[in-house]
């Protein structure tokens, strides 16, 4: 099997599982309890908090563990908005956020909040000037992702943070795809809230975190017991949290070196596909791009067929975000960068890990070409295109 869907989820590293295991069966105490069994769990929990904090430049007690990137996004956006309702009702975000942000914003619209969804250009980039233009007296929150999950584009977070801080507006970033891969410093980048999710960096599924800068006015989202300093109720997922922290620690070890290798392999993949597959294009900015993301549109064929073809050879890939599969509409991200529907349907995302090899990439490209040829031979769109002289290109 060749796993090239590391932005959808990642395997949990063996070292991570080993670190978690004792907390299922041996040190299983409820961290809120008093006895030694629980104090051991509690200590490890706080160590995990410290590790996570350090890696993003935060303080230990600014980290709150949640159950997913989605929960972190929901908490941050809904409860900042509701807590600051008296100050204003306007939120700024972009058109290419993950659904965890977009659908949450739409939900807030039903409650009377006003949301500006910023456009992006054909490379997926926002115009910084646009943010300033849309800020008004009622703007209480800017939520813009650190890096996009589909087309890999990295946003100018420090610049956005600067503007937000200057204007006194709370700034949240969904960094689910960035944490572990990019060097993040919440202080230098003026980030007030940041979402992350364990399963995106070889940690377990079902555990995430929200960084909340000290002093930020936010409501609780989960009410109940006094866990997480009374801000997020629910018995702590001790093994999950330990796993998340361990995985994050591993992911930043030799990060530069790993990223250098990743970028090389990614660029090799991109260059080869673009040169060897006719009528293909790269989606997302070529430079401000996650080191492991390649996203193409392959004209005249449809993404799901391509994925099924690849699956026949044990190659795992995706077409748009894993979350959007199952929907009939093509990805909102690809539409936002201006692709027509029929071209957006033919998108292919390959996301690498630092264990991906050149051999795997070569095999994938070889199979990709075969499958594309087969599907194009079957495609009435390709037939029409060729009959018309084959010269309108993307």
């Amino acid at each position: 099997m060749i796993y090239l869907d590391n932005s959808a989820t990642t395997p949990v590293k063996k070292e991570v599982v080993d670190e978690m295991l004792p907390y299922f069966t041996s040190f299983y105490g409820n961290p809120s309890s008093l006895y030694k069994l629980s104090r051991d769990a509690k200590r490890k929990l706080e160590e995990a908090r410290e590790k996570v904090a350090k890696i993003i430049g935060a303080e230990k007690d600014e980290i709150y563990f949640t159950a997913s990137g989605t929960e972190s996004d929901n908490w941050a956006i809904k409860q900042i908005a509701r807590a600051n309702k008296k100050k204003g009702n306007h939120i700024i975000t972009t058109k290419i956020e993950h659904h965890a942000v977009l659908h949450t914003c739409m939900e807030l619209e039903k409650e009377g909040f006003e949301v500006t969804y910023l456009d992006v250009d054909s490379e997926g980039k926002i115009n910084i000037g646009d943010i300033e233009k849309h800020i008004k007296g009622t703007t209480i929150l800017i939520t813009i992702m650190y890096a996009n999950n589909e087309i890999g584009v990295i946003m100018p977070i420090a610049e956005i943070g600067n503007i937000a801080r200057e204007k006194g507006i709370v700034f949240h970033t969904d960094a689910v795809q960035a944490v572990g891969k990019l060097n993040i410093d919440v202080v230098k980048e003026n980030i007030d809230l940041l979402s992350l999710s364990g399963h995106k960096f070889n940690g377990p599924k079902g555990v995430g975190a929200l960084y909340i800068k000290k002093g930020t006015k936010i409501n609780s989202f989960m009410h109940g017991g006094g866990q997480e300093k009374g801000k997020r109720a629910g018995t702590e997922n001790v093994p999950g949290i330990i796993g998340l922290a361990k995985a994050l620690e591993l992911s930043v070890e030799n990060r530069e070196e790993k990223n250098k290798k990743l970028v090389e392999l990614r660029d090799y993949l991109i260059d080869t596909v673009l040169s060897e597959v006719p009528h293909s294009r790269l989606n997302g900015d070529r430079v401000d791009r996650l080191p492991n993301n390649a996203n193409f549109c392959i004209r005249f064929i449809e993404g799901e067929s391509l994925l099924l073809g690849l699956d026949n050879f044990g190659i795992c890939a995706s077409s748009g975000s894993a979350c959007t599969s199952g929907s009939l509409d093509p990805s909102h991200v690809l539409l936002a960068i201006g692709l027509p529907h029929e071209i957006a349907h033919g998108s292919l995302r390959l996301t690498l890990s630092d264990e991906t090899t050149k051999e795997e990439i070569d095999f994938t490209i070889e199979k990709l070409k075969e499958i594309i040829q087969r599907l194009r031979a079957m495609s009435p769109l390709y037939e029409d295109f060729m009959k018309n002289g084959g010269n309108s290109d993307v």
Partner: protein
Amino acid sequence: MYSNKVMDHFNNPRNMGEIEKADGVGTVGNAKCGDIMRIYLVIEDNVIKDVKFKTFGCGAAVATSSIATELIKGKTVDEALNVTNKAVMEALDGLPTAKIHCSLLAEEAIKAAIEDYKNKKGVE
């Protein structure tokens, strides 16, 4: 998610291709929605002697086109008109709910090709 039958037809589509001088050609669907089916028919004495298809679309779209061509090959035009999307689905051992529209598309493609044949015949 797909039955083995669907995957078989996706991987080994029957009657895939183009017929240069078809008696009827029907194209349905919309690239915007991600599915286009085209069916080519050769009809002699009101019987479908040959049929080919081309499809742009998901696995279910390919498989429904493929099975549809099998279902109508050798049938009379009237019999072919009676092939419903339900029959297409049954022949594939079912489809996921989100993919039922593909079977409808296959039914429509057959009808469109037969209509084209009738129009052409009418003109002759």
